[in-house]
């Protein structure tokens, strides 16, 4: 009976496992285009955590529109961490008392481990010769961008255009308003989400230029085999900072605080920064950024804080009911 000791040992191991190692499950509620990113990050983090603590951590993902995801967490989806497209959506979760109001100062770099920026995707060879924001309002140019009312990503697009006009010589709020109004008159289709807008541009062949997050533009270009589209970097654009945070209340209830904190800190590690760069997000680490310099050309950016204060102010001024977008958006 040679088999018996082996079996016994196996049984003993199986029974001993739960006592030795803690199994932890985290729920990361994220927005749409981070699917591939977090798939890679989660594998790396689980291996890292296992090596350091011997525990098995499983990270479950939920993806959807950023605002919709925030609402789900507000309504009781037990997210341990949220990784969304804009701080306003996490603010909304904080307003319901699920995490501290000062969440954005708890991690470095405005709690955004990776960034992106707003660029233009144009058809191969750039037939309409689109170089900068000003070219978007030339007659005969059609612009595709999603509706900032339903797409968190599109709010960055809107603010990028506004900031560009504001920074022109002699620029002020009135001129910016006129510029963005004209810009939206060039928008033939107002998709509800960023991926929808990308599809409209790439698959349906509508429009001459897609205003998009750089990671989305790079992905779209890669998907098309690099043959159909070019990326144009405007003279100045906004630094999009998608933030992350631990949902204090849920993490405390589920006893996952420690691992949730470690998970978000891991996003700043060299290993994770490399994964983020490979998934077309700009890493914060200068070393990793230098390694991927070819993929991310130099771009002049302004931050939301520099031009608009913070997201609450931007939301109230531009995107709330009856605010500027409702006054100047398409249909007006």
């Amino acid at each position, binding site marked *: 009976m040679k088999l018996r000791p082996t079996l016994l040992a196996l049984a003993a191991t199986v029974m001993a496992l739960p006592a030795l190692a803690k199994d932890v499950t985290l729920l990361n509620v994220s927005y749409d285009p981070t699917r591939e990113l977090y798939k890679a990050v989660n594998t790396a983090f689980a291996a890292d955590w296992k090596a350091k603590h011997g525990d098995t951590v499983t990270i479950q993902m939920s993806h959807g529109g950023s605002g919709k995801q925030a609402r789900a967490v507000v309504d009781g989806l037990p997210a341990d961490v949220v990784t969304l497209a804009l701080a306003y959506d996490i603010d909304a979760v904080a307003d319901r008392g699920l995490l501290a109001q000062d969440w954005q100062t708890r991690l470095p770099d405005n709690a955004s481990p990776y960034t992106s920026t707003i660029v233009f995707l144009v058809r191969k060879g750039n037939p309409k010769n689109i170089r900068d924001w000003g070219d978007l309002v030339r007659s005969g140019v059609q612009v595709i961008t999603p509706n900032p009312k339903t797409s968190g990503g599109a709010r960055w697009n809107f603010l990028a255009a506004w900031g560009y006009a504001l920074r022109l010589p002699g620029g002020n709020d009135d001129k910016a308003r006129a510029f963005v109004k004209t810009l939206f008159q060039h928008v033939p*289709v107002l998709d509800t989400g960023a991926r929808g807008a990308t599809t409209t541009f790439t698959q349906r*062949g509508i429009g001459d230029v897609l205003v998009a997050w750089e990671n989305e533009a790079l992905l779209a270009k890669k998907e098309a085999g690099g043959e159909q589209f070019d990326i144009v970097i405007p003279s100045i654009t906004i630094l999009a900072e998608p933030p992350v945070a631990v949902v204090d209340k849920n993490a405390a209830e589920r006893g996952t605080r420690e691992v949730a904190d470690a998970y978000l800190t891991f996003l700043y590690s060299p290993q994770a920064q490399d994964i983020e760069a490979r998934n077309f997000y700009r890493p914060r680490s200068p070393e990793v950024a230098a390694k991927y310099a070819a993929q991310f050309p130099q771009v002049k950016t302004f931050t939301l804080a520099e031009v608009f204060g913070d997201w609450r102010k931007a939301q109230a001024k531009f995107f709330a009911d009856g605010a500027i977008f409702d006054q100047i958006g398409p249909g007006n």
Partner: protein
Amino acid sequence: MRRRVLPGFGLSLGFTVTYLGLIVLLPLAALAWKASEIGLAGLPRLLSSPRTLAAFKLSFGGALLAASINVVVGLMVTWALVRYRFPGRRILDALIDLPFALPTAVAGIALTAIYAPNGWLGHWLVPLGIQVAYAPLGVLVAMVFVGFPFVVRTLQPVLLSLERDVEDAAESLGASRLQTFVKVVLPTLLPTLLTGFALALARAVGEYGSVIFIAGNIPLRSEIAPLLIVQRLDEFDYATAAALGVVMLTFSLVLLLLISMLQRWTRRWAEQSA
């Protein structure tokens, strides 16, 4: 007391009321409760805004038109399926249900792919000046698509049980084809047609998934009412979203009641003319 097939009137009524209460009334009550937060004063302002009006006009106008088209085409299709025997009839019959089975987003993407300027139909239609995708016409196409099975499936059993003898009798009494159809067939079918119309209408009014992909969603032009609700939700403005929902429901309820009254009236008319 007359014997009924199934015993236990009290039990079944209790079950019916409880079940309807839980499944239908409770969520609706929650909606009304949430909507009451904006108060009666907020309602006229919300409803009088040009954008809300335009969206409601598109949603209800589009749905009424789509249901009308479905009734006419649905009657023809059902007639062909029931009255004629031809190869491929069963496959055709099975195809009718596909809009039921398809996730609406898939339907929307498929329709958009076909009608977009670079799509199969789109690249013929657009040069002729007919823009379907990203225009109000696209909304109509999507609404027709999702509502179609309702008309056929409600009409089919009634048409199957409709005796051919009656038509033969009408013919032998000297009625023309048109007279037979208008005076004999149509009155019997009308109540059922109205049921199909109501179902197709209700489905089209609330349709979001498929319409959103093909509409273009430009405010005042191709923005449907459910999208307005989603936008309010994205502003974390649950009360206004719920209020818009209640207005849509009330509107739909009034329409459905009207149809049901019309139905009773046509049934009586059918019995009188029979």
